[in-house]
Each structure stands twice: as structure tokens, then as C-alpha cells.
């Protein structure tokens, strides 16, 4: 990694090591790779083989590729002719994925590229509630716990009568 010389990372991160680049002879910092035990990302669509199209804007795909086990939730499973990646989206092969779970509105209250935006009202409610442990417990009890996904989508996303999710 370039750029750590002269910063206080040198003092507080003994795992960032200064080595000599064997090719240029320059000193450079190396950092250990992050290897998550499990990565969970939410993607936009999957095909029937478990390949997915996910957001290209964040590091979702990198997280999926780095993990020992990768779980991808998707908005929907689409027929082959609709399985395309548009700008802002990118393919992720089923090779790298251990489980695909159909979960419409699975990013809620966050956004899903080209599908829905951030639910600002809900996020503000969450931020206010999560300032204290009691507030967060009350938030969970009110919005999440004891609800089916269908019920959550109806009460929190305003989508009545969504079909129950199927599994792949």
C-alpha cells in the first residue's frame, strides 16, 4: 500500500510492515489481506444457475470474492434473456457463491442500485433509536422481531401482498 509513510498508522498498526519492493528496490508498506469468514451481499438479480448481477458502485463484489463463504441475497430470479448487467451493475459468477437467497427488498432500508433508493424516514428512525441499547431493542421489537419477511415488506416497505420468498 502506498501512502502510509509519515502517517500515524506507522505507530498504531504493527501489522502494517515496511518492506523493500523486490522489483523497484523502494520501501513500501504491505498490509495483511482481509479474509472474511462469511460475506453477505445483496444483489439485484440472479439467473437460474446462481450467477448474479450486483452493484458496481461499492465493494460488494470484492467482499464476495474475498470470503471463505459467500451468501448473496437477490431481489429476484430472472429468465436468461433478462440476465444483463447495466452501467452501475456487474456480474458475479456462481463459482464464487455458496448460497443465493431470494429476498425482495433485502437491502431495505438501504438502497438497491436501479431498483429502489434509501428509505430516509426509516434510516432516521433507526439512527435515533440506536443511540441507546433500549432504543435499539425497542426498534427491533417494533420493526423486525417476530415478523415474516412478507409482513416486514408490508409494514416497513409499504408493499402489500408480496408473495412469500422461494429458495434456490
Amino acid at each position, binding site marked *: *500500500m502506498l501512502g502510509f509513510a*509519515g*502517517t*500515524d498508522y506507522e*505507530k498504531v498498526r504493527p501489522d502494517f510492515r515496511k518492506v523493500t519492493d523486490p522489483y523497484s528496490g*523502494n520501501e513500501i508498506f504491505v498490509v495483511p489481506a482481509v479474509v472474511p469468514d462469511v460475506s453477505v451481499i445483496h444483489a439485484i438479480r440472479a439467473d437460474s444457475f446462481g450467477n448474479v448481477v450486483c452493484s*458496481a458502485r*461499492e*465493494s460488494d463484489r470484492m467482499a464476495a470474492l474475498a470470503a471463505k463463504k459467500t451468501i448473496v441475497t437477490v431481489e429476484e430470479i430472472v429468465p436468461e434473456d433478462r440476465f444483463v448487467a447495466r452501467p452501475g451493475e*456487474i456480474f458475479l459468477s456462481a463459482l464464487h457463491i455458496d448460497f443465493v437467497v431470494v429476498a425482495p427488498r433485502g437491502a431495505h432500508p438501504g438502497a438497491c442500485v436501479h431498483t429502489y433508493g434509501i428509505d430516509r424516514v426509516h434510516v432516521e428512525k433507526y439512527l435515533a433509536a440506536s443511540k441507546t441499547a433500549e432504543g435499539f431493542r425497542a426498534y427491533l421489537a417494533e420493526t423486525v422481531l417476530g415478523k415474516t419477511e412478507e409482513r416486514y415488506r408490508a409494514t416497513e416497505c409499504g408493499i402489500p401482498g408480496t408473495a412469500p420468498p422461494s429458495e434456490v
Partner: protein
Amino acid sequence: MPLRLQDVTAEEFLAFRISAEVRDFERTAVGTLSPIPLLGVLHAQATHASNGKFLILGSEETPVTEGSKELFDLAQRGKLDLFFLSGAQIDRKGNINLTCIGTYDAPKVRLPGGAGSAMLYYMTRRVVLFTLAHSPRIFVEKCDFITSAGQTPQYPWRRGGPTRLVSPLCTLEYDTEDGEWRLLSLHPGVSFAEAQKETGFPLSPGEAPVTPSPSPEDVAILRSRIPTLANSYPVFAQSLEEKIRSLAP
């Protein structure tokens, strides 16, 4: 805030000042949490930098395929000419703190962290710093934690670093020889004494020209870019439109 402006909001004024840092035919990137730099870049793109390439995270016009990794790789290959950073603290030597206020082990405030800023500060040819406030809490003699270093002596090479700092009171220029800021211009209505009082290190020289204000044409261009700004920063764009509406006619 002593900044005195007519017919233009402080946000638009600062964006206009940032636009002057954007050059034609270059690669300019705008990261997260940077609505004013984005508005400035959109103004530049619509005026003097129409041949530039712009990497705007979240934009449909320059879609990326690998998120911020693509930005980081572009900078590390030496292909990024201009980027924008801010900090919870910025010190006399141009160091930035995005890590913690207080000591690292027992911080008073734990900040979100540097993300790629250490590398971007180092590998982007020109980095323009911006702040939405100007006070001795932000402009300090020395950062509590150096997340991104202004200068790195005795290191093989770095490609670039800080060049300007645009705050709500003034514009500073980075002197790479002694590694310190110099006062470049004072915004309209801001005296040297006021700027110095809000800065935790000595400002010099003791006088500076007034920062140019945008013309009515420039203000119109800035406002015409707000819908594009809203794609990346909807909340900021909405509040800016409210401020514009509340300007005295």
C-alpha cells in the same frame, strides 16, 4: 460566519472557487461526502473543462465497474490529476486527521477513518482540501492523529499532495518547499484578523486579495447543475435549493 455575499449562497461561492482548480483535459475524481467539490466540478465541466474526464461515484455518466477500487487503482497508476479531501483536523503542515480526536487508544471522538485518503493524498497529482467550517478546532497546529501526511521526507517518491485549501473564510495555498500553508485570498467581507482568529496556526502573509465571486452567469450555471448534483447528494441538493429560495431578492 463573517463571509458576506450577495445573490449567492456560501455553498455556491465555495463551489465556484473549487471550479477554478479543475483543469481541462485532466482526470478529476469526486469521492464520497463531497457535495461542494462535486458542484464545483460540474460547473467546471460546463464551462472551462468540457474535455476533462470525471470519475464521480454514483454518477450514471461515468459508471465504474469496481466501485472505489477503480478510483484507488486509477490514482496508484498515476492517472488521477485532481481529487478532493477534507478532515476533522487539518494542521499547519498539511496533515489530515480522519481517525480520532484525542489519543488513538482512548479517543474523545472516534472518526469514520481514512478509507483511501492516505494513498490518494500521496498519489493524486493535486489534492484540494475543503472544509464546511473554519475554526481553531479544525485548523490546528498539529493533528491528534495523522491519517494522511502532507509531506513525507526521505521516502522514495510521491506523485503529488495538497495544493489548495478552500474554507468558508479563505483560500490557502500549500508551499511544498517548507511544507506549510500560505494565505492566498480572503473571501468577501472576511478580514485577515477574523481569519487568523479562527485558525489555530499563524497565517501569512498578513494581507491577501479578495477571492473572486461568481458572475450572474456562473451562478446560473451552478444552479443548472443542481439536478445532477442531486443524483449523488439528494439531501444536500434539496437544502441548497431551499437556501437559494430564501436569498433576499
